[in-house]
């Protein structure tokens, strides 16, 4: 699955509860080159947040502006190192005693 960048500083709430995140244009960002409508992507702010969604685009300023659409806000996962470390501590070890 392709990974695209967002800093998650903007979450547009759609009437059906889905979330739309602006990604940018392929001219400005290499990770958006050759995207296909409806492609499933992992939106990632490294060290902070991540979510899976579907991309869609709209005509914009002579090009296309890409958005990621998430099923809901619950699709956004905290991937901060402190959060991941806490999750590891909370997971019982699979190793035999």
């Amino acid at each position: 699955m392709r990974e695209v960048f967002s800093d998650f500083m903007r979450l547009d709430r759609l009437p059906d509860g889905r979330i739309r995140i602006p990604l940018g244009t392929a001219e400005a960002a290499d990770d958006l080159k050759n995207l296909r409508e409806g492609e499933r992507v992992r939106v990632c702010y490294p060290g902070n947040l991540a979510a899976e969604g579907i991309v869609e685009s709209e005509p914009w300023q002579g090009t296309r502006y890409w958005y990621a659409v998430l099923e809901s806000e619950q699709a956004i996962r905290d991937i901060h190192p402190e959060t991941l470390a806490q999750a590891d501590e909370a997971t019982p070890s699979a190793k035999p005693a």
Partner: protein
Amino acid sequence: MQQIPLVDLSRISALTEIILRAGDASDQSAHRSMQDAYVRPDPDYPGLVGLSTLFRPGASLDQLARAGAHVFRHRKLSYSVIARVQQEFGAVGYELVLYVTPNAQLADHHTLAVARAGSIQPALPDDAAEALIRALTVVDNPYRPHP
């Protein structure tokens, strides 16, 4: 490009006014993330480059964090007073520019850009990214929804 208003930084109290950005500026990937974010146009403001920030004259850090609470799911927030950002940028030859760019969710949304000799930089230079990282202090986001 449409005419986007600027914050007149000469008319504010640079030692007290704060900018806030969601996310952890101390993360090892912060430099690259800032550069990635800087070049992506805001769909509401064609032609503009820069980093999303919150700023409101007179607002405390807590007030800015609350203003972003309905959007920011980030565990950490990064902030600085304007004077510190100007100092760090100035040390490497850049100037701070703040565009007033409110959106439907964030009335206090601004776009932080970097200029050199009065010319807005189309991409965030490495030394400017490092300067901004040095200026920012990272705190827990007390208002994010609990998972």
